[in-house]
């Protein structure tokens, strides 16, 4: 029975997606049922799996692909971290997208690819070896492309081209590196000690090159500078897509891949032995600062958020590259925390765009009076991004800082401080505008019957995620929180 | 010079002549004829290959093959002629000088 959970989780989004493709545009109810049904079923299955994994019952499924090559699905603690994040946020984003795309054309196509995208993300989370990971990683690349260009404007198509050029370019490099590594090291099952540590020292040169190739190719999706160009331009996509793209699927897939490569393919000890991690840490640090600096000068809200993502995702990499238990905790927990915070911000940006037609920051004067709930969620998430205690972002930063000290690299603190200052200087002015500047526009007043600021479908998801931002921080040490789970992973990774 | 070699040599010469004609001549009928001449050259080689040693007994297998080959070649010639005639009726040309890329739609 438990063997079937893994494929069932994959199919819970894949099947509805495929069915949705074939539905005519008018069958809203059936489509919505399929979407939400799939999301709920997936959530339940993931919860079931959670209890299995928490009891250390790892399930695994192997399917032969070629002689000596298998599709391996396996649920370990790390997979589950990513899986829970994606399943939960997918559920919210589905609700949000249903509200967001009300009455817009091509919804069947949109939700179809949307489900494919999530299936691919699920596959990435559940991948038990490098080959499987690559398969789902590329599937994600391609299923996201139609979402990026969904609007069909020339600008969207242009962004799509850039997206495709970068991600597929990264994809082929990843492909080569994986084939090469497979040819050197044999089967590439993810295992806590890595699979390459025992190889002939004569191969260490090749391994270093492979490591660099893997990091660079995965770094495209993780938006490491200078491979981040696609991310801000992909902002042209509809808000639910941006939300998912930034918070869950694409950038996280890159970061998750880098974690897998470092932890489960090369092994932390071996990577550190080959001095592979320090350059990565430097790259991540540079990205953190660079992304924030670029975010400062953006007037388009979503672009500013995009550069903020560029910066924030590298926290994860920084934590992983420090290779100490505390830093790993900080990095991994940021995987979740950043996801929840960023999705909130994008939901709110989407609400502004959809309800009031606001896209630019200088149009946001006093919007807090018109949409107080949305903007409250925005504020919480933005403060979390800055890293104010006790919000989620603070927890990540605290552990990252401690981890940096433990790794004997106190410069990390300077990076964290610099980033916090920069984050503050691109978020706080926005918050100031929202709450304290009198509004210059007269927005259409709410047309909803009870005078709500916007529809429930658009309002509930950001409120839930904003609440999560608070709870992930305030209840960080409770059983079941992201931090709790990540500490479990770190203990397993490094030993008690 | 053994008959086998003679046959082989003339077969190859025929093949070459046919090849040259096929490529150089523009008239469709000439091309069809050229292809037939090439085929004849190949068949002659086959006939020559049927001679093994000095037994003087001809190997029947190549002859059977040639017979088959002639049938194939006949079919091709027929189809080619039909097509050529049809093309001639449609365009009035006897060559392949049709710019195909611009003529779809």
């Amino acid at each position, binding site marked *: 029975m438990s063997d079937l959970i893994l494929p069932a989780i994959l199919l819970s989004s894949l099947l509805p997606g495929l069915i949705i493709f074939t539905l005519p545009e008018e069958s809203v109810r059936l489509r919505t049922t399929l979407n939400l049904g799939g999301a709920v079923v997936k959530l339940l299955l993931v919860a079931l799996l959670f209890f299995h994994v928490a009891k250390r019952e790892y399930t695994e499924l192997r399917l032969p692909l070629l002689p000596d090559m298998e599709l391996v699905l396996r649920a370990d603690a790390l997979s589950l971290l990513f899986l829970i994040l994606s399943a939960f946020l997918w559920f919210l984003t589905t609700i949000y997208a249903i509200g967001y795309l009300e009455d817009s054309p091509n919804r069947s196509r949109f939700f179809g690819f949307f489900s494919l995208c999530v299936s691919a993300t699920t596959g990435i989370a559940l991948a038990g070896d490098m080959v499987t990971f690559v398969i789902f990683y590329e599937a994600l690349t391609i299923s996201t492309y139609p979402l990026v260009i969904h609007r069909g404007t020339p600008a969207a198509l242009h962004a799509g081209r850039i997206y495709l050029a970068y991600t597929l370019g990264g994809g082929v490099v990843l492909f080569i590196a994986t084939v090469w590594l497979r040819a050197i090291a044999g089967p590439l099952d993810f295992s806590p000690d890595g699979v390459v540590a025992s190889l002939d020292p004569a191969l260490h040169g090749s391994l270093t090159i492979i490591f660099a190739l893997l990091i660079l190719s995965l770094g495209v999706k993780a938006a490491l500078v200078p491979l981040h160009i696609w991310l801000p331009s992909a902002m042209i996509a509809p808000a639910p897509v941006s939300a998912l793209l930034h918070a869950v699927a694409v950038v996280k897939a890159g970061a998750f891949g880098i974690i897998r490569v470092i932890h489960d393919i090369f092994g932390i000890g071996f990577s550190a032995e080959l001095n592979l991690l320090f350059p990565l840490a430097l790259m991540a640090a540079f990205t953190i600062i660079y992304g924030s600096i670029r975010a400062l000068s953006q007037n388009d809200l979503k672009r500013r958020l995009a550069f903020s993502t560029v910066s924030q995702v590298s926290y994860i990499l920084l934590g992983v590259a420090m290779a100490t238990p505390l830093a790993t905790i900080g990095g991994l927990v940021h995987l979740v925390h950043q996801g929840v915070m960023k999705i909130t911000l994008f939901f709110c940006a989407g609400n502004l765009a959809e309800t009031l037609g606001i896209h630019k920051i200088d149009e946001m004067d006093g919007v807090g009076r018109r949409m107080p709930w949305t903007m409250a969620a925005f504020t919480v998430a933005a403060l979390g991004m800055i890293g104010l*205690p006790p919000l989620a972002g603070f927890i990540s930063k*605290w552990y990252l800082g401690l981890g940096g000290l433990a790794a004997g690299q106190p410069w990390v*603190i300077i990076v964290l401080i610099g980033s916090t200052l920069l984050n503050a200087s691109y978020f706080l002015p926005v918050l100031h505008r929202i709450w304290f500047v009198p509004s210059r526009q007269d927005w259409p007043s709410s047309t909803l019957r009870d005078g709500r600021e916007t529809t429930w479908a658009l309002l509930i998801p950001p409120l839930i995620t904003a609440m999560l931002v608070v709870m992930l921080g305030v209840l960080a040490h409770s059983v079941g929180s992201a931090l709790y789970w990540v500490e479990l992973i770190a203990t397993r990774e490094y030993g008690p | 010079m053994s008959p086998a070699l003679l046959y082989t040599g003339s077969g190859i010469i025929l093949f070459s002549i046919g090849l040259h004609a096929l490529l150089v001549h523009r008239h469709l009928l000439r091309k069809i004829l050229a292809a037939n001449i090439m085929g004849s050259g190949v068949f002659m080689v086959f006939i020559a290959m049927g001679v093994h040693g000095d037994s003087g007994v001809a190997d029947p297998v190549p002859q059977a093959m040639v017979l088959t080959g002639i049938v194939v070649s006949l079919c091709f010639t027929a189809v080619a002629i039909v097509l050529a005639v049809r093309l001639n009726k449609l365009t009035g040309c006897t060559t392949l000088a049709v710019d195909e890329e611009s003529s779809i739609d």
Partner: protein
Amino acid sequence: MSPAIVLLLIPLLPLLTACALTIAPLRRIVLFSAPLAAVPGLVTALLPEAGAPVVIPWLVIGTHLGVDDTGRIFLLLTALLWLAAGLYAVGYTKNSPQQVRFWIFFLLCMSGNLGLTLALDMISFYVFFTLMNFAAYGLIIHDATPFALRAGRIYLWLVIIGEVLLFAALLLAAWITESMLLSDVAGGLANADAMPLILGLLLVALGIKMGVIPLHFWLPLAHPAAPLPASAVLSGAMIKAGLLGLLRLFPLGTATLPGWSATLIGLGLLMAFFGILMGLLQNQPKTLLAYSSISQIGFPLIAVGLGLAAPQQWHLLAPVVGFYALHHGLSKGALFLGVGMAGQLNTPTLMRYVTFGGLLLPALTLAGAPLTSGALAKTGLKSFLAQSPILDESLLAILLGLAAVGTTLLMGRLLILLWQQAGSSTQAITKSMWSGLSLLFAAVILVGIYPEMLTSSAPGISVKWFDALWPVAGGALLALLGRYSLRNCVTNLRVGDVDVLLEALLRRLGEIAAATKLPPLPQLPRAARWQNLPLLLLLRDTEQQLRQLSVAGVIFILLLLALLLL
């Protein structure tokens, strides 16, 4: 109720009240009862057995709350001041259009300020400190005047810088001491290599809050910009949060650090005199009070400096510092709230004298007149001056005396200014404002006469009348003299501080940056149709050639030859 819940209630009640304010139907009732959110804190502070330390492991990353001796006096001050300011604010904001927004920030700020007095571990201290600092921004810019916005901007910048430096300091401290408890920091840091760095970071981070020179310049901007009740808590309670942080995090009582001691004493003296001088030059009562706060906060700083020089004396000195904080907080709060009552000075009724008396009392207390808490606090401080690593004891005593003269002078000028400007005050006065003010008056008097009643940790000090009297008398005399001789000289001064300097510097930097900005790179013209790229055109032509049978035949023959030859 378990102790954990009681302790959590202290910061939570204001938070919940703030949340309740967002619900429109509840708003009227909640607005009226909002000040009472500070009551649990006050009760806890007054009950000596309440507030035993508790550990809440699931909260954030392990929370330790409790009321210790230092905490109790700060909690008392904070709760009392917020209660009074809250009562005052009920009337003060009655007709304000942004009433709800004000109260939300007021309550958030209250929650942070109350919470940080309870915090026994770094994270919760940092959490509440941050909450208080950021919520205060909403109070400072509440009036949305250009002056307030500028003050808010400067305040916010300094807060953020302070936050990150505090973050770094706490991080380092947590790493070195391997503990999150504040009580472990002092001991753990004593022998660490990174101690100077950590202390430096702390001094800057907390110094911003306390107004340590040269990080003080936000104070005279922000305190006057905020509405009066907010100014009262800003200047009375929140400024003490920095002091509390200093008391909690510096290795007091465990390490002898003459260098740091000298630095702090020097800074304290500088602040004491700088605040007075700058204050005297102001003609806005609130600005003057803000400078007075800078001046006054110098004294506890001196005390902390003395403590660093003589760790063995710290257990005696600590109550003095706490008492000083209490005394100053209450008096300064009363003065700020009193500023709003200045209109009463212009009425021809008895109220005019009641108000003046009411203002005179905290002013005298601040100056350290006998029978007031000010005298107690200053006397307490003076008894430790011998420990100073710099300057002679008697010289220090004289300096402190001079500072007291200056303070009296300053207070004199304040009263004179209030009297002069009473006519222009348009503030409507309600009963709840009076109730808030009265509460503070009562507290000020009580602390002076009977310190043991309000706080179990008050020092048992006997005040020497002459020592306390001469500076006040001298100062008052000077003030009266100045009132008549210099009346026209200092009325129109507008004195800038470091902020003006900094802004000029930044502006200049901006100009330089703008001047050196490179012109935009010329854009390459995009190929009109990329299909017409030369390479692709070449391909197309070649493809056309290949399509000719003769060309193809030649290629075929060439290929055949190549295969034959290979």
